[in-house]
């Protein structure tokens, strides 16, 4: 594969395309509400209308408005149809010329779409994720070519550093710094020096589906990002760790890897350079803790998925003791755009400390459930009220939970908080991987805290004592509070346990497990106190 061939593929693909493309979302959300059948019916309807010469039906990745699926969009007209049933397929084909249509029309200029800024999701809903040609026609793999031919690994790392990109898995560690550390790491003294690149696709937060959507919608974007990273840090092998609950993502990734290999975009001497890079998929078996990088490494190595103390960090000693770069799916998806459009362009988006965009999964009691990509620094209010449209039934929004079981609940009174790493931390939550669960005034915050604690308790690997037993004890206390059995002293005990588990747990799962409790205690303490047992214990001293 050389540049001419790459451009040839793109040109052939553009020439092959028909004038009108009916995009039918086949990502998991729409898939589950019958998109495949809809796609077949659309194809049949195009055929029946005798328009197959100018119209094609394309199964595309996630359009984003998941709560309104199955979604169909039309290019170039920009028409959008929501909650389409297979029976409406002929109608949609008939409406291509602007006729009336029984299918529900969506508004492509709705703030849900217009307020977004698409960087990693730019191809979502626009290309067929199962065809590498479409990705290449959208400019794909050009960035990889450019770095392999025109940039030294140090220059690539410098660009990523200057872009200000921070890890999208949740903690927000500067990506360029991580890459530089892996690049400089010499690895274990004995044995062949080898490095690995790992993509963490073990997305497990309740209510989060950003990474799934990216993997399903644009798998090559992630592969290209991993390849660029491998070149930058000097790795020749990559692993994509995807949770087993994402069968469609795994299927599309496998297909993408096969295609990339076939086109010489993975394998040996990529783009006729000395750069070799192979990628294998590893499927997680369902443990949330395997999203923690050291547990993930153990899992890839075939061992029990349990974290180990850091340091040494994986950048120094990771897979099989070798320096390993671990980044999240969304982080890798940002790489090719940064390379193509420049670090300065990327750094111009967002806030001073949180650059670029972030993908969020809007879920819970929100009118517009779905996936959004917004510039950092946007306020929670804009997300919840403008993009999200408030609650479905118009009742007041009470709080939004960010960061999953490691995050916190932010009350509506703080909705003017800008969404960036530091601001969210300051109000007692975290950016997290992008789950955003909206709660209305019928939601009990104590029960929310109990829900997340139950999640952490079930997902604790059992290695360290504070997390293994502490989460059970905290859940027990929350249970008692919810059942109206607890005394004021038990809230004190709960707070002490939060402190203990946070300060003494081995890994991030345990250290952050108290966060939902601490944040709800901070903002909704009255809800805890309302549920306390009121009758005094008959035990006063004589």
């Amino acid at each position, binding site marked *: 594969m050389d540049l001419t061939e790459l451009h040839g593929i793109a040109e052939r693909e553009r020439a092959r395309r028909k004038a009108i493309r009916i995009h039918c979302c086949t990502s998991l959300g729409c898939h589950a509400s019958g998109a495949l059948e809809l796609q077949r019916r659309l194809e049949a309807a195009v055929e029946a209308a005798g328009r197959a010469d100018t119209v094609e039906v394309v199964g595309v990745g996630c359009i984003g408005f998941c709560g309104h699926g199955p979604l169909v969009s039309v290019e170039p007209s920009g028409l959008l149809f929501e909650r389409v049933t297979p029976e409406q397929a002929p109608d949609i084909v008939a409406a291509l010329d602007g006729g009336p249509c029984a299918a529900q029309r969506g508004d492509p200029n709705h703030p849900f779409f217009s307020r977004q800024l698409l960087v990693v999701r730019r191809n979502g809903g626009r290309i067929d994720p199962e065809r590498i040609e479409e990705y290449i026609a959208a400019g794909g793999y050009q960035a990889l070519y450019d770095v392999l031919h025109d940039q030294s690994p140090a220059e690539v790392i410098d660009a990523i550093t200057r872009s200000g990109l921070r890890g999208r898995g949740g903690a927000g560690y500067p990506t360029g710094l991580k890459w530089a550390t892996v690049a400089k790491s010499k690895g274990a003294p004995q044995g062949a020096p080898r490095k690995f690149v790992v993509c963490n696709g073990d997305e497990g937060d309740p209510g989060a589906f950003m990474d799934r959507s990216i993997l399903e919608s644009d798998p090559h974007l992630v592969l290209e990002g991993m390849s660029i990273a491998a070149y930058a840090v000097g790795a020749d092998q990559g692993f994509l760790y995807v949770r087993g609950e994402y069968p469609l993502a795994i299927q599309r990734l496998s297909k993408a890897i096969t295609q990339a290999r076939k086109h010489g975009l993975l394998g040996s001497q990529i783009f006729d350079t000395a750069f070799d890079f192979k990628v294998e998929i590893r499927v997680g078996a369902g*443990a949330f*803790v395997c999203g923690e990088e050291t547990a993930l490494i153990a899992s890839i190595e075939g061992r*029990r998925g349990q974290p*180990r*103390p850091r340091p040494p960090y994986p950048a120094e000693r990771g897979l099989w003791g070798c320096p390993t770069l671990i980044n999240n799916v969304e982080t890798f998806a940002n790489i090719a755009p940064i390379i193509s459009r420049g670090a300065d362009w990327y750094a111009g988006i967002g806030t001073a400390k949180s650059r670029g965009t972030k993908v969020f999964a809007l879920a819970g009691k929100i009118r517009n459930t779905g996936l959004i990509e917004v510039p950092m620094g946007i306020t929670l209010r804009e997300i919840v009220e403008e993009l999200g449209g408030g609650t479905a039934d118009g009742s007041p929004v009470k709080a939004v939970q960010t960061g999953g079981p490691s995050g916190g609940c932010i009350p509506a009174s703080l909705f003017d908080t800008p969404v960036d790493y530091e601001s969210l931390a300051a109000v007692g939550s975290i950016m997290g991987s992008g789950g955003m669960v909206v709660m209305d005034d019928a939601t009990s915050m104590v029960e929310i805290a109990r829900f997340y604690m139950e999640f952490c*308790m*079930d*997902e*604790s*690997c*059992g*290695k*360290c*004592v*504070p997390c*293994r*037993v*502490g*989460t*059970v*004890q905290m859940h*027990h206390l929350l249970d008692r509070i919810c059942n109206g059995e607890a005394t004021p002293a038990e809230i004190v*005990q709960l707070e*002490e*346990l939060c402190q*203990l588990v946070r*300060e*003494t*747990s*081995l890994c991030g799962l345990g250290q952050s497990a108290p966060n939902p409790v601490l944040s709800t205690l901070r903002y909704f303490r009255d809800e805890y106190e309302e549920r306390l047992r009121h009758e005094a214990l008959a035990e006063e001293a004589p």
Partner: protein
Amino acid sequence: MSAKTLTIDGQMVSAGADESILQAAREAGIRIPTLCHLDGLSEMGACRLCLVEVVGTSKLQPACHTSVAEGMEVRTDTERLRAHRRAIVELIFAERNHVCAVCVASGHCELQNLAAAVGMTHVRYEYLAPSCAVDISHARFGIDHNRCVLCTRCVRACDEVEGVHTWDIAGRGTESRLITDLHVPWGEAASCTSCGKCLLACPTGAIFHRGSTVAELEHEPTRIAAIVAARSERW
């Protein structure tokens, strides 16, 4: 090998560059409580009892798994650490059914000693009272899961010293259980060499010699006659 100088609890200590804070402290006669640590085995960092404060970092560090550094200032016995250690030991006691009074290890049990050492007077948490199995299918040894603290010292001793890896852990969270081979009764675990290293490594009475438990006590009625004879001669 280069040496490092650090301060532990106000005391200047010299340590090898590859030593852990725990090793350096022990050499200096400073006791830091441990449970999952066992000399000669790899470090787990799981019990969290050896957490110490290192000046300059807000996070507590496991002494067993943190290397010494030049000029490091370590505090091993602050009020916060004492409270945490006491709470961790309480959590362990609350997790399974640790009944010292009827335990084979009572009197030489590390958990029992720890409770005294950290000043645990009682357990503030609810006892979980799980239903745990006792496996006495092995000819010489038994395991009572009621007393297991999941320190994995047996797992590591079996794997790293005996080189067999009969032991491992199945399940997760507080449902974690020690297993032998692929979760077969110990007596049927083909890889077990019956070396007994797990028994030596066990800090509590979880792994024990067959015949040493109260329930397995074999009564010898004939001994009564001997006792009676001895008494009648003496009185």
